């Protein structure tokens, strides 16, 4: 077990280098001069040169990458933003809780929708409920989150006025003069959560339904019935216990995908999360911020995958990590 974790962590280091190197290369392949963008329109060539030197942009790319790694390893620092010299660690620390609120809340919401709907559809295939939920699935998968977000904002925010259209409220320590606290936090996140959850809820309804239907036909379910087990025991202890195993794996992997999906939702509702920050950074060629987000998200995904693998070994007796 310990050996397995150590091996996984070593792989994580390799993965980390691969991801950051690729990001660096992509950034420098883009045919533009970051220093020119940073300095502004009225800069003289000398000024640009100074800016270049200040950010080490006049050094070869591998050396720059070396600086980046050294800073990260020695100082645990992601550097300062090209755009406004803000500490990137701080940018991430401010943006991550917003994205975490969105993604984790969204994940809870999509599971709350997907588990009952998936199971009920599987138990009554071809029923009205099943057909309705499959229609929902089709819409959820086909419609783009940006479109759903705008429709929700228009309908529930603007027309009906039930929920705020934009903005984020800190749950614990709101800056003075802004909204805050759990209620405001949730109130502002209802629409983003709903928007964010629909795509994944749709995917998960379909997956859970398929898993449950498949498991219902397993021989051991027939064995359970042959024992005289009542239907609710058969469902809970024999069907769901097995059908939910792959869902755990999927959930762990999809949290990573979801971080990417958060970009759309954050843009629509103007949430100051990682996705929005990344978009801003891309527009201003702010390499340190982009790298910061990449590093942070990579670590989160690696951590989630590790947790899921350990969790899986715990809930499925057939899996032993070695």
């Amino acid at each position: 077990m310990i050996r397995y974790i150590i091996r996984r962590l070593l792989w994580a280091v390799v993965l980390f280098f691969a991801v950051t190197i690729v990001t660096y290369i992509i950034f420098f392949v883009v045919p533009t001069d970051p220093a020119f963008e940073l300095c502004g329109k009225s800069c003289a060539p000398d000024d640009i040169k100074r800016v270049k030197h200040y950010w080490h942009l006049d050094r070869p790319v591998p050396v720059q990458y070396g600086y980046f790694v050294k800073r990260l390893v020695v100082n645990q620092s992601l550097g300062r933003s090209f755009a406004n010299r803000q500490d990137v660690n701080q940018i991430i620390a401010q943006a991550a809780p917003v994205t975490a609120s969105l993604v984790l809340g969204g994940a809870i919401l999509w599971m709350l929708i997907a588990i009952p709907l998936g199971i009920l559809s599987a138990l009554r295939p071809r029923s009205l409920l099943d057909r309705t939920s499959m229609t929902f699935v089709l819409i959820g998968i086909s419609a783009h989150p940006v479109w759903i977000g705008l429709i929700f904002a228009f309908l529930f925010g603007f027309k009906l006025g039930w929920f705020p259209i934009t903005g984020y409220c800190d749950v614990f320590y709101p800056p003075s003069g802004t909204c805050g606290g759990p209620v405001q936090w949730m109130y502002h996140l209802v629409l983003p959560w709903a928007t964010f959850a629909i795509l994944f809820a749709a995917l998960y309804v379909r997956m859970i339904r398929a898993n449950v239907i498949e498991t219902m036909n397993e021989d051991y379910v027939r064995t359970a019935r042959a024992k005289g087990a009542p239907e609710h025991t058969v469902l809970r202890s024999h069907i769901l216990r097995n059908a939910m195993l792959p869902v755990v794996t999927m959930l762990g992997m999809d949290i990573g995908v979801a971080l990417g999906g958060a970009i759309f939702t954050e843009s629509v509702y103007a949430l100051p999360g990682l996705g929005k920050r990344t978009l801003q950074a891309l527009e201003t060629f702010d390499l340190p911020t982009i790298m910061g987000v990449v590093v942070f998200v990579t670590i989160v995904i690696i951590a989630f995958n590790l947790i899921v693998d350990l969790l899986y070994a715990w809930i499925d007796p057939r899996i032993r990590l070695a």
Partner: protein
Amino acid sequence: MALLEVKDLKTYFKTDDGIVKAVDGVTFSVEKGQTLGIVGESGCGKSVTCLTIMGLNAKRNTITSGEAVFKGNYLITMAPRQLRDIRGNEISMIFQDPMTSLNPVHTIGRQLVEAVLIHHDDVTKSQAKARALELLKAVGIPRAERRVDDYPHQFSGGMRQRVMIAMALINNPDLLIADEPTTALDVTTQAQILSLMNKLQQDFGSAIIMITHDLGVVAETADDVVVMYAARIQEEAEVGGVFTRPQHPYTWGLLGSLPRLDQNVERLVQIPGQPPSLLFPPRGCRFNPRCPYVMNICKEVEPELEPAPGNEEHRSRCHLGQDVREREVSKLLSGMMAEAL
């Protein structure tokens, strides 16, 4: 009164292609403590017959009629709740594939204990566990005290089938239905499982319905035999009768296709053709398209199950004259006797 009396049992499945008559009017009975062998090819309806008795067919798309009376209970028309009380308690079942018949995420012990607790509210968990251990020992699981907390994947196929047998017998059932219990096992394990079942039948006194396509299994275990073909019973007799005076050409085909130790043949004898589609069973005798003795009447009229001369209990469904049958049987048996000698 027999322990189980099945009368004119019919199980039809509604499919997109039409109605599949998987079991079409089957009648037999099982006496207390006796073993009934049901023999036939894959798809002849032998498993469906037993699943119907147990009420384990999917409700959807299934039409069932006829009677199955077990100790005065009408199993087919019973409320599901009451049927559940009988299932796993008074009638239990062993399935064909032990590799998939146990739940992979629960320990063996838990699955055995579950079988006890479902039917006994007054039994504590530790009593149930003790009973589970007792049964695991009875079916010959070595180091049962330790293995009771193992998961199914930690057992071999033969050991899993022993666990299934333990689970089936744990509530002392009056009737045990074994649906090809040895088909998925290798030959040496097959023999162990069969002798185990014979021994346990003596210890527990359960009646057994042994479903199989293997006449060797029937010879070893059964008291009475039912030969099924295309959803119908074609011949029924006590076990000796089937092997010494078989009456139906299909039974001859089954006996003739047994591998022989005394002859070196390239190819085993086979019954030509395929089992008929149960969507559109053949007119007349259902075996007529494959029968080497087919006559005109066979294609028009389905014969009744009629007793053999001098033996009311030995019945078969065939138009052939008694003289032809006797001639063919003696030919067939002389070949088999040669092997025995």
